[in-house]
């Protein structure tokens, strides 16, 4: 039995927890305002808001319901477009109408839901953040300009928002219906989901953002161990000079983490390159690692930090370097019943420089063609420690060990880096596919590795070195 609140109604269902939230909404509850566009989280037509009680307050995040398993909705508040409708249009709806931000209308409920989520979030009210809230919504008709104009109107109307109590502010200002104020008390009455895991063979699901793209039908009736809301798997903290990120932390958790932002000033730019807001709200760091995609963005990011992971089978734990987790294409150093409990890495000190790069056909909301991260520790112009990762250039995510070994102990200058760039080519084995030819991937990786240096040391490294 799964229990949650759907709009203003308490739902108790015996439906298979492996079914998608989208199918439940549309075909069980006949709420057809939530649309099906792609069934792989890439268009946002099925966007819903998912609210959770945290410290007595409701926090709402967007999720693409097509790849969100129903089992992950236990004890939450799901809001569809129907749950936002009132007698009069909300300011979000009115702005979309006013600026003609809707043409065929099929993607529109998704945009309205995402922008309504922005209206009730505690994020700073800026145009940039409003656009970020709809970065997972694709529209084929408008060319987005009218939607941008609608977003600007909404931003203007949100200027007075109380960031400490945004949900109530949104109720008072008619952005959302009044029933939202009853949700916290009603959610408290729902007992949290007991762990479903019956034995070691059940499929472990975090956010489901990859499994539900690849194996949507298999998951429907699968025996699933839902990890997403396990409290021991959530959180980011610092201990003994190490950052420890629990495996269930989402990409959004990373993006908004105070701890990480304190040490990575460009975190926003870097993590904005990873999928889209609704996917970042679901996809977990452990999921990204075990998915074992050679092109996983977070994998490249953390290999570049020389991160370790701690695996647990419930009884025993072991810690290995993340780079050693990958043994071959989709082959992991992991027993079936092990899960990634946490990832941890040394806090970068003042002499450590970090950068993340990604090349893709579309800058945002795309899978990388190649990606790379670098952390480099410098002492008096000498490279004392260096890690450069590379994704998309082999069957597994890589640490460019030879290149790094070559640079270790060298002076940071253009000659040494030029030489290192040549080293890269012998460590990689890209293949031609839909994302690009092997030649291109070789060149692109070389370019982005050089970009690490132009980004970290703009005075020393300039593009002219490549001409």
């Amino acid at each position, binding site marked *: 039995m799964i229990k949650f609140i759907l709009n203003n109604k308490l739902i108790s269902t015996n439906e298979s927890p492996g079914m998608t939230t989208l199918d439940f909404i549309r075909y069980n509850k006949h709420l057809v*305002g*939530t*649309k*099906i566009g*792609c*069934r*792989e989280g*890439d268009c946002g*037509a099925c966007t819903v808001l998912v609210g959770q009680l945290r410290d007595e307050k409701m926090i709402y995040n967007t999720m693409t319901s097509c790849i969100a398993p129903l089992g992950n909705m236990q004890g939450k508040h799901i809001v569809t*477009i129907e749950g936002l*409708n009132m007698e009069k*249009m909300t300011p*979000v*709806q009115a702005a979309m*109408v006013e600026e*003609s931000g*809707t*043409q*065929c*209308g*099929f993607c*529109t*409920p998704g945009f*309205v839901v995402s922008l309504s989520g922005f209206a009730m979030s505690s994020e700073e009210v800026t145009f940039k953040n409003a656009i970020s809230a709809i*970065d997972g*919504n*694709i*529209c*084929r008709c*408008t*060319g*987005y*300009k*009218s*939607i*941008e104009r609608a977003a600007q109107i909404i931003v203007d109307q949100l200027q007075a928002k109380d960031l400490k109590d945004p949900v109530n502010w949104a109720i008072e200002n008619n952005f959302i219906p009044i029933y939202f104020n009853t949700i916290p008390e009603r959610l408290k009455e729902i007992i949290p989901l007991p762990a479903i895991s019956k034995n070691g063979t059940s499929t472990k699901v975090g956010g489901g953002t990859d499994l539900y793209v690849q194996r949507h*039908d298999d998951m429907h009736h699968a025996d699933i161990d839902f990890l997403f809301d396990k409290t021991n798997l959530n959180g980011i903290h610092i201990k003994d000079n190490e950052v420890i990120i629990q495996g269930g932390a989402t990409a959004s958790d990373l993006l908004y983490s105070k701890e990480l932002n304190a040490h990575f000033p460009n975190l926003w730019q870097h993590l904005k390159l990873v999928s889209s807001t609704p996917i970042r709200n679901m996809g977990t760091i452990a999921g990204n690692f075990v998915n074992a995609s050679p092109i996983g963005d977070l994998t490249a990011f953390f290999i570049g930090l020389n991160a370790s992971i701690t695996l647990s089978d419930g009884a025993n734990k072991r810690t290995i370097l993340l780079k050693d987790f990958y043994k071959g294409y989709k082959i992991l150093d992991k027993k079936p019943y092990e899960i990634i409990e946490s990832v941890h890495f040394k806090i970068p000190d003042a002499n450590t420089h970090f950068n993340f790069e990604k*090349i893709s*056909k*579309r*800058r*945002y909301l795309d*899978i990388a063609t190649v990606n790379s991260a670098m952390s480099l520790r410098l002492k008096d112009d000498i490279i004392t420690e260096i890690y450069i990762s590379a994704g998309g250039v082999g069957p597994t995510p890589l640490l460019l060990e030879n290149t790094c070994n070559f640079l270790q102990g060298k002076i940071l200058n253009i000659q040494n880096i030029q030489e290192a760039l*040549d080293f890269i*080519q*012998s460590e990689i084995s890209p293949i031609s*596919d839909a*994302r690009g030819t*092997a*030649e*291109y991937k*070789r*060149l*692109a990786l*070389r*370019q982005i590795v050089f*970009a690490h240096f*132009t980004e970290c040391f703009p005075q020393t490294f300039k*593009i*002219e070195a490549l001409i």
Partner: protein
Amino acid sequence: MKNVDAKNHVSGKSIYLDDIPVRQGTLHALLYDAPVAHAIITHIDYSEAEALEGVVRIITHQDIPGENQIGGIFPDEPLLAENDIHFWGMPIALIIAESEYIARQARALVKIEYKELPVITDPREARKQDSLIFPPRTFKIGNPENTWENCEYVFEGEADSNGQEHLYIETQGAYAYPTEHGSIRISSSTQGPTAVQKTAARVLGVDMNRIEVDVTRLGGGFGGKEDQATAWGVLCALAAQILQKPIKYSVHRMDDMRITGKRHPYRSDYKIGLDKNLKIIAYEATFHQNAGAAADLSPAVMERTLFHATNAYFVPNVQVTAYSCKTHLPPNTAFRGFGGPQGMFVIESAIAHAANELGIPARDIQAANLLKDGDEFPYGQIVDYCNAGSTWTDAISTYNIKTIQKEVDNFNINNNHLKKGIAVMPVCFGISFTNTPMNHARALVHVYQDGSVGVSTGGVEMGQGLNTKMVQVAAHIFNIHTNRIKLETTNTTRVANTSPSAASATADLNGKALEIACEKILERLIYVAAKQMNCAEEAISIREEKVCVNGQPTELAWEKLIQTAFLSRVSLSEKGHYATPNIHFDKQKEKGHPFAYHVYGTAITTVTVDCLRGLYEVDSVKLVHDFGKSMNTAIDDGQVEGGLVQGIGWMTMEEIIYNKKGRLLSNALSTYKIPDIYSVPGEITIKPLATEGHPLAIRKSKAVGEPPLMYGIGTYFAIQNAVKAFNPNYILKFDAPFTPEKVLMGLYEGREVLAKVKAEEEKA
């Protein structure tokens, strides 16, 4: 006036195909389609699939009572394959099950064996093997052969443009159920209800009056649901006829992308000759259209390529030939622009080539050759109401091209990491179906006793704002509030024998028909009012819902007038029929006057290329567009912005990839990228050209659906100019889309870095 559907859209209340409440006992359909591109079927075994609990029936070509044929222009496309497979994704069998989920399980159990045959994916290869859909066509004016020797400069080259996936966010689909007397009612997500009706009748072996097709709205069409929506409607109707049950098919995105055709890829050759004043005095082009495995709409698309081969330029000596090449791809089809963009890309490439060789900006050549009144198009139509020069001049001066150029040059002098490029793109696009017999439409108007109005037309609302414009037309003629008027669904029993909503002409054709219907009713109402007011009919008018005598409002309001008319036994219903006047085309001579009018415009595009990473952004597109006298600026601006961005997508990130075996690799939204909110131009500025409009446009408001897409072509050349600014070794290539890969390779070609990488790859 805002879009009449907008409020429903923003509250999720608009009803699309998959939102129609299903009837009890509805079954679900799913295609089994070929996993090979060219083959003969050697063995079929449906037994396991049929045995699966919940599977009701597997329908094959043998179950078709009528003709197994869905080809619209030529009868060359079976609904379900018999023995031969011609493309990867070709429908073979229709699985009917109690749920979609069961149907998908069953699909995995179908066992078919094939004998594979050689696959052609390249149109040049197809031409070499004489594999053509139909014979080539040539448009000719003057005599280019004899002109080359008089040219100061002659340049030749190749220009290729790739296909484009429509990516309507609502996928294809249909819902059909049996009604009485052997009839079937089909709800379809189609731009062409009559095509669905006619084809269903043919396949089911019944008269057209037994098939009713109803369309509420589409979640995007863009041409992809003009011809290719038909199969789904017919499949559902066929299953409904056989099983006498309601049948629903809402197509999964990956199935839709794999099975349906796209914009035609073209591979072309050009030869351009200029005199010393940069006048283009001769132009030749050979277009190889990749039609895919069946004709679909390819003949018509190919024709429009020829019509728009010289874009907005006057060239006295032209010979352009097009080949529709038969390959083993899914049959390619209509897509916004309909072959026009492909033709324009080639002449723009030729001009860019010439400009590069001559060391001048392409716009010097473009400006020297713009059309003017009295010029003759290669197809014989004489240019009139020409706005090629006026939109160009307006754009150049309004946006101050010299200043933009200077800013770009200064930027490029001071930056190596980033380079900017600009390009100007003029557009001239003909409005009308180039197949003259299609240029007619009908509308049906009922004024109800309470004064409310119901309007049916043959047009389909798919986001282009048709319903809104139709409301405006009716409200304008009757001079009543728009909220009295309701647009009905598009239904073949109310408005029959319609042309599809396409060719940018839907509002013109249906709007004019609607005007006629409304005017006929108005005439009768004026008669009633004159009698009531005891005055001459000439003295009567209706203004703001009131009957006026000699312009003075009376007490006789709209509602009262309608009641009076009704009680006087005057008909309050009317049908209007409109056929575009003055158009004709002789396909033997390839001459005539095919277009009611042309739409013009000029766009200036500025881009910035990151020369380290090969990534780019469109900074701005500033344009002057010939709307005529726009009847709805909100809707028309939306069409310009949306069309432009779709054109930019086609020229930049949207890359269709088939492998050599004919399998689509860019088969999902994860591998086929369309513009997201971050990839659109930082700025789009639209200035309407000051003009009186054209009398054949609805209320002088010109067609706007397709022309803006072609502004996107400028992006290709702007990127190219930025790449040139970084890499003097770059050799011009005309091979759209200009993906980040092509940009990066272009930035570094002829440089040691790339040579090293290539050597490493060879070693590996």
